[in-house]
């Protein structure tokens, strides 16, 4: 090889370069496409979870029934403790001093969205207040439309 190079400098140099340097352009194309695919398809959302207890989950459990109820009703713009309006801070204060075996019953009022409920649940969880139970608003009825829709197989979404 060395000898050939000396004999035909220009031609041999050209050939050597062609052998060693594979064209990078197709490789870069593919890598770019892969990069764009992974950039668009991957998600970086970090999921968290909140535990949900309903009253039936500890039916027949150790919950004392002779204690007064601690019913917190949640609406989007207000909070009710045993049917009287209360602020979140005073609710947390009262919840802290309640007997530890007394469960807080959380009840969404009417059409309160899940987010409002989770916000309150979050605050109580952050203070380490337990046990918590979720109950349904007895006056709430799934609107006929929702009920029919929920029970029907979905053709169009």
């Amino acid at each position: 090889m060395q000898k050939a190079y000396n004999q035909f400098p220009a031609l041999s140099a050209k050939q050597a370069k062609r052998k060693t340097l594979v064209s990078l352009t197709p490789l870069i194309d593919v890598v770019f496409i892969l990069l764009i695919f992974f950039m668009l398809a991957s998600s970086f959302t970090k999921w968290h979870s909140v535990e949900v207890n309903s009253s039936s989950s500890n039916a027949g459990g150790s919950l004392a029934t002779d204690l007064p109820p601690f019913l917190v009703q949640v609406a989007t713009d207000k909070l009710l403790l045993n049917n009287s309006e209360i602020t979140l801070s005073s609710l947390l204060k009262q919840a802290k001093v309640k007997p530890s075996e007394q469960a807080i019953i959380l009840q969404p009022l009417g059409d309160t969205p899940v987010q409002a409920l989770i916000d309150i649940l979050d605050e109580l969880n952050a203070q380490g207040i337990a046990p918590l139970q979720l109950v349904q608003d007895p006056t709430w009825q799934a609107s006929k439309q929702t009920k029919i829709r929920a029970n029907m197989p979905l053709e169009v979404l």
Partner: protein
Amino acid sequence: MHFPERRPDQTEERILPLINLVFLLLIFFMIAGSLSATEPFDITPPTSSSETAQEVETIVVLMNKKGHFALDNQPLSELDLLTEITDIIKRSPNAEITIKADAGLVGNHLVSFTHELYSIGVKKLQLLTEQAQQ
């Protein structure tokens, strides 16, 4: 005449750092990002400050704003969903169920659904949330 012959080599050498970078980015997205199946409907989960990470290996039930259900990314009616879950509970009684509900869903709808799940024998339920903006 020698000038144009040298040129491609120089440009290839010049784009090498670019290729390195693109490779690094590619590897980053491949490893750090997670690919997930597309869900049958749009769900914006509620935000919470909960620190509990989602437990893997749970059955995920989707519930959208209108109260439509889906299990394993398959849209189902509520009755079909409950029969499916009853079957799962029969096979593995300690199965945990994760509900991924839309933040705008009516709270009572979610609560009544959790009651139904508990009544068919589900022992542990969790609600999926997103990290709240600090």
